[in-house]
């Protein structure tokens, strides 16, 4: 059992997947020779050769499009998008093909690809290196969207996503990449050749902190902040807040969400993406639709603002902070 950060855990997962299954290839911009700008793919080229670990030309639509073609032939490509906002040139391929290939082939030929997207802010990066586009994918039927938050989840989710027959977008919160180490079991828990259902299990929400008075629903880089906010709520307000780390973004773990909201009677949704038509709106709607009689207050949202992700000198003003989360929680609690 090793102590790994998320980058190391993802790297371990890729090594394990490529070792276990010849169908797995890894591709993207600068992922082979350098091991990727975040080093998630480090060592793979040396271990598995450049036929299977591929530095591609600089063309995101081409990357996702050729990955789809590979999967039709039976490979299991894992494509990296270098940074969040560079997925938009590939948006067409994702929406009109990755998401519809199973459907368009009467279920026979899904686009069994994984698209890894390091996403989100907080790393003082230039423009268009800090977007959170996950809600866009969650509105496109045919995709699965997942966002691991812990190193162990990251490794397991990656393996399960590769095993899954459907196209999976793995949103990797880059702010968490090197934020800390935790235990990742050495053994790969998933046999890629025989693990169709594994992803569903890993897309169930994870209770990041127990609590009874307020359910805080979140995912990715805001998860540790929500836990910190919960600690502060406990210390300063005597409130016991549960933190749900969603993991699955589509499909959402609607049962866990509703159960927590119902039990607590109050809920808050937190994410980094802009608020308008973001995933928080879906979570909030689901709770109200299913559990309004259990609620003592409306579900509120603490999110990024409805503005382009700012230049990095002001990113802290944009990002949900522990303070903002506490303030949102207090608003729900005092309703």
């Amino acid at each position, binding site marked *: 059992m090793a102590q790994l950060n998320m980058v190391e855990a993802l790297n371990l997962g890729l090594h394990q997947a490529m070792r276990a299954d010849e169908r797995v290839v890894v591709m993207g911009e600068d992922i082979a020779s350098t091991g990727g700008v975040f080093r998630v793919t480090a060592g793979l080229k040396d271990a598995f050769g450049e036929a299977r670990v591929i530095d*591609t*030309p600089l063309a995101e639509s*081409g990357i*996702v499009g*050729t990955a789809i*073609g590979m999967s039709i032939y039976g490979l299991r490509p894992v494509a990296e998008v270098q940074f969040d906002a560079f997925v938009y040139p590939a948006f067409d391929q994702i929406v009109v093909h990755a998401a519809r290939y199973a459907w368009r*082939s009467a279920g*026979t030929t899904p686009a069994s690809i994984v698209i890894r997207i390091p996403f989100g802010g907080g790393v003082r990066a230039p423009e268009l290196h800090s977007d959170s586009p996950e809600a866009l994918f969650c509105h496109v039927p045919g995709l699965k969207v997942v966002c691991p938050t812990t190193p162990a989840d990251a490794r397991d989710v990656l393996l399960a996503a590769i095993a899954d027959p459907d196209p999976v977008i793995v949103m990797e919160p880059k702010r968490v990449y090197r934020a800390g180490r935790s235990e990742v079991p050495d053994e790969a828990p998933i046999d890629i050749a025989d693990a169709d259902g594994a992803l569903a299990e890993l897309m169930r929400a994870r209770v990041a902190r127990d609590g009874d008075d307020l359910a805080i629903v979140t995912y990715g880089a805001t998860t540790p902040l929500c836990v910190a906010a919960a600690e502060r709520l406990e210390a300063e307000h005597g409130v016991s807040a549960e933190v749900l780390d969603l993991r699955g973004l589509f499909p959402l773990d609607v049962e866990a969400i509703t159960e927590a909201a119902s039990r607590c009677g109050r809920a808050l949704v937190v994410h980094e993406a802009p608020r308008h038509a973001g995933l928080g709106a879906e979570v909030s709607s689901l709770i109200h639709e299913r559990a309004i009689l259990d609620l003592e207050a409306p579900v509120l949202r603490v999110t990024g603002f409805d503005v382009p992700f700012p230049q990095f000198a002001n990113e802290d003003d944009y990002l949900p902070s522990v303070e903002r989360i506490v303030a949102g929680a207090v608003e729900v609690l005092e309703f």
Partner: protein
Amino acid sequence: MDEPLRIIGNGTDVPDRDVPDGLTDKDLIELYRWLVLLRTFDERAVALQRQGRIGTYPLYWGEEGTQAGPLYACSDTDWVFPSYRQCAVATLRGAPPSVILGWCRGYGGPAGFYNPRTYRVAPICVPIATHLPHAVGLAWAAKIRGEDTVSLAWIGDGGTSEGDFHEALNFASVFKTATVFVCVNNQWAISTPVTRQMATATVAEKAAAYAMPAERVDGFDPLACYDAARRAVQRAREGGGPSLIEAFCYRLGPHGTADDPRLYRDDREAERWRPLEPVGRMASFLARLGVLDDATRDGIAGEAKDRVAAAVRELEAIEPPGPEVLFDHVYAGERPWSLEEGLRELRALRRREGD
């Protein structure tokens, strides 16, 4: 600008050239059979559309040679990637024509979509140029696996303007994938003439940007289409990388059954090209060669008619997909709950409405 390769002459002043390498008389007849099947399907589909029995239909009248020729140059294990304009090409690999008609009737599920892996024919692709990267990825995958599968994809002259055209050809040339790009330059993209689509005089010239071999052929000449594709497929299979073939022709019909070309072009231009159409031309050529007699010709025509008629009967016999089809096959794995709920909602409503 090179004159496009032409093998079939006109029986008078334009001489025939030799039958391409590797084509026996049996092959010639089989290829003719393909052309006739495509033609028969196309004409019948247009009629069905006029009767309101299928939806808008992207007829390909006159382009049969650009489809059958290159396909005939492929091995059965090679993959082909049609656009909407090659909607019926899977029938030449054994897919039931009724499924193509089902697609045209707006059926989803197995009534409208075939299994690409059964026929090594990708699904009909509606969004322009987006299937080209798939063809590249597929051949690339074969290469990674050490297999010599070739992929062949069709694209229109208009399609060359899309970014995906460029990205696909670039990836193919960088990774030397065994991919053959067949650009059917019928000189029109709906109402837009090819002269407004590109500044080059030919599509073939664009291959220079990818250091890729290219060839222009008479798109109305099935044997020229075959021959260029044969060479390209062989080169690809031997590790020589991708090629671009420009099948130069003319869109003889409207863009689709909903289109009225009189809004933007002179009918007489199409009339001038019409005598070059491939099916009659191939028949004359084979007759000149002494390979096709009237009886065989009629037999082939009859066979095609019967097959398409049977397909129409099958189409009419199929139960139209029920509402469940909406939720089927969206995911290859288990249906997510939100689809399950949708299905329940729809079923409840149906029950309530007594439908």
